[in-house]
């Protein structure tokens, strides 16, 4: 295959796009929890103590596109690890599967709050932080493989 190195360009830009998507997603979530009228620490405290109530309709409205988008995005990023000669296939497999599980946990976390199974919003904060950190880790692995 000639000029295979040219494919590094779309992959490198993809990493930047995903960082921007993650950042805008976290910002959107914090806005929905009152970031516009309070500082970031107050917003975190608010999420932990009294997360904004969400109906099942609102939950489904957010969860449906994210199930598709997150699943596709993880698949696309993870499949680039097939090209990697620097990262082992076993590590790629573990990181990808953990990321899929954490993504599912992150999407469904608000369901536990909506149904009153968890009173505090720490579960959403924890799942979102885990998801973002592991995703950034996977992006780092792809960047390292370029």
């Amino acid at each position, binding site marked *: 295959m000639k000029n295979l190195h040219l494919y590094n360009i779309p992959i490198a830009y993809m990493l930047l796009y995903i960082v921007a998507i993650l950042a805008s997603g976290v910002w959107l979530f914090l806005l929905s929890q009152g970031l516009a009228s309070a500082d970031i620490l107050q917003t975190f405290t608010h999420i932990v103590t009294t997360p904004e109530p969400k109906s099942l309709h609102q939950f489904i409205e957010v969860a449906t596109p994210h199930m598709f988008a997150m699943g596709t995005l993880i698949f696309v990023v993870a499949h680039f690890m097939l*090209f990697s000669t620097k990262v082992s296939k076993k590590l790629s497999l573990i990181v990808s599967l953990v990321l899929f599980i954490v993504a599912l946990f992150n999407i469904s976390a608000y369901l536990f709050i909506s149904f009153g199974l968890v009173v505090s919003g720490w579960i959403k904060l924890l799942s979102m932080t885990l998801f973002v950190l592991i995703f950034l880790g996977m992006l780092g692995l792809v960047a390292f493989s370029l």
Partner: protein
Amino acid sequence: MKFLVTKDLEYSTLIKNLMAGVVFALFFFFLLDVVLHSYVLGLDVSTLSTTLFGNPDEFIEPILLDTLLLQVHIDLFMALFSIMIVASIYIRLHSKKVMTKWLVHALFILGLFTPILLLVAYFTNVWFVTIWLVTFICGHLLAMWMSLLSLKKLLSK
């Protein structure tokens, strides 16, 4: 993208036709995306300014930050996938051309900065609205042009 790299077009009619199909669809996606943004945000400086900053004389409220941010979030996602596909196919078909590298760079940079500039415009002033408009139109025209070049090459083989 792996599938685009591993198969040789000379020996696979199926992948050639599949690529032609997706490029054809993406050409219309980019075209309709311009129309959609003209309905949602406006496609001239005056309408865009009214959407972003409101108009007190006509009692028009500015767009809510979360509505704009949601649009940016979706635009980034859609841009990533559409540009990735167009760029990958373009590289596959035009890898020998010197310009290919720069066109792909330009397409990705325009696609990334267009949504970000919209947010910058919201927080700053009308100058960035003009810059957003130029990058948005240029990005979409470039993507459509690259799609057409790919389609031409695929159909001529």
